[in-house]
């Protein structure tokens, strides 16, 4: 029986170690985010004089000179406001578009087998291939169409790439609605279009939420295409974050502060998804 206790203790130790390993980076970032310039390169965790300077610097980079007297060998990176707003707009628009199109496609796929399995597989394919493969032609294509550095360009691309998820998630939910209920609704006075909007759509609301949250998360995090396709106007948050990493002068403090700020929305969404996914991750997997 001692063996039992030992293994149990071991189990908790391992879990504890893992929990710790997960928390340390977070702790370091929090610590750095509140350290003043003088402490950006120290190795202890708790700042001696915690300050919110770094957060200010994210939005008012000119203050670098004022507060710390640095210039010249330091990158001055634009305020984070524009990238934040751009990300919000682009991500929200993408989510709506992808879920909207995904819903209709999933409905057709569920009730009419159209689009057929081939098209559905093709959409799956878009997720299996490295995005890097597409950047070359998209760059050229968008350049010719004048879509570079625009909201439209980003939103269409992101929607095209994430709609697969919407389709797969929603199709499962739509399949679960008995066709008889749609037929009944037709007798209850609903035209076929009304059936889609007043019967099926409300009944799959949880699916819409899950798909929406998931697509929002993915799009918010996207870096590669944003790097390639944006420059000044449509710069998104991930691009902005990338400017701090390895920047001239190594602005560790603001870098950490931005990491914190940039995590708020994704983590909130992540936990929202967790709450909504009662049946768990395997719901979508089991179908495959």
């Amino acid at each position, binding site marked *: 029986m001692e063996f039992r206790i030992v293994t149990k203790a071991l*189990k*908790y130790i391992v*879990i504890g170690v893992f929990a710790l*390993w*997960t928390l340390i*980076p977070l702790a370091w970032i929090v610590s*750095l985010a509140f350290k003043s310039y003088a402490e950006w*390169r120290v190795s202890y*965790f708790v700042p001696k004089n915690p300050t919110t300077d770094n957060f200010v610097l994210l939005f008012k980079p000119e203050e670098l000179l004022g507060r710390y007297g640095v210039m010249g060998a330091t990158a001055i990176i634009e305020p984070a406001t524009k990238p934040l707003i751009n990300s919000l707009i682009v991500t929200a628009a993408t989510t709506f578009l992808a879920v909207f199109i995904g819903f209709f*496609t999933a*409905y*057709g796929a569920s*009730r*009419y087998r*159209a*689009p057929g399995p081939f098209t559905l597989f093709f959409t799956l394919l*878009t997720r*299996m*291939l*490295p995005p*890097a*493969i*597409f*950047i*070359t*032609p998209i*760059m*050229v*294509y968008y*350049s010719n169409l004048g879509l570079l550095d625009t909201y439209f360009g980003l939103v*269409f691309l992101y*929607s095209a790439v994430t709609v697969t998820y919407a389709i797969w998630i929603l199709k499962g939910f739509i399949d679960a609605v008995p*066709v008889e209920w749609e*037929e009944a609704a*037709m007798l209850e006075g609903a035209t*076929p279009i009304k059936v889609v909007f007043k019967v099926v759509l409300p009944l799959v609301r949880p699916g819409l939420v899950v798909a929406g949250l998931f697509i929002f998360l993915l799009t*918010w*995090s996207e*870096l*590669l295409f944003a790097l390639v396709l944006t420059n000044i106007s449509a710069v998104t948050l*991930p691009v902005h*974050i*990338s400017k701090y*990493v*390895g920047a001239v002068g190594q602005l*560790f403090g603001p*870098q*950490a502060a*931005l*990491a914190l700020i940039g*995590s708020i929305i*994704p*983590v909130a*969404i*992540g*936990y929202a998804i967790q709450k909504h996914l009662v049946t*768990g*991750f*395997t719901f979508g997997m089991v179908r*495959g």
Partner: protein
Amino acid sequence: MSREMARSVKLLATLPLNILLNAILIIPFAIMIYLAFLKWSPAMGIDWWEAAFVGVANFVRALGDARFVNALTNTVIYTVSTVSIEFLLGLLLAYLMLGEFTGKKAVLSLIIYPLMLPPVIVASVFYLMFQPYGPVNNVFLRAVLGDDALRITWFLNPRLAFTALIIADIWQWTPFIFLILYSALSAVPRRLVEAAQVLGASSFTIFWRIRLPLIKPLIIVAVVLRALEAFKMFDYAYLMTGGGPGVSTETISLYIYRVSVLYTDISYAAAMSLVVLVMLALVIRLFIWYFFERVR
């Protein structure tokens, strides 16, 4: 379906939208194939449809390009390393988390939070972690090397840089494998588990002999998904190491990105992309054949 009358209305709602969207992907794809057979770069001052046709020159160049091969090799090593380590860790963790205990919900939430973070941010975070005065060196300080540890510069040493990337990946993605395996393991019918318990099987035996074999298909799904994602990796390499030192941590996504955006050697990038695509398609085809079509 018995609702023939609604067909026209419904099809109108599904197909065109989907196809229109695919115009964003299919046409560029076609363009890419065309570009691969040209010699063109925006720097040449002409439009791409005016560029000269060079046949398979780009492909030949790609196959002989040491840097291309290097990028592929790096990517493969990276993929294999991360996926295998994540699988083992994820499995171990899933096994340990199977019982009930106080605070389990909290621990569960904690474990999966790295998954929610944008990879950009994780890259940024680990860039900071691996700085000379960062906690990684401090941990080493305490454990192994004494004060010398503070002088280790992760990003200046090819092997260490590669390792740093792998560590970041493991930190973020082990929870992914964990989540899938844990959900699957929990979903094993209680009857089977209880029957084995009644027969006196240890929890390890139950795990190894009953639960694990039952979730084999999901294991495959988890591993394949993760492998596909690992192969695509761009964010960590771009941000943390920039592919360096030299090209020791340059992944294929990063190299193609460089060629397209920095060197603007568009047609060459297109050719490389196609080569990678064909290779991946072959691997996926082989995989499907191996797992699904062989007579077992």
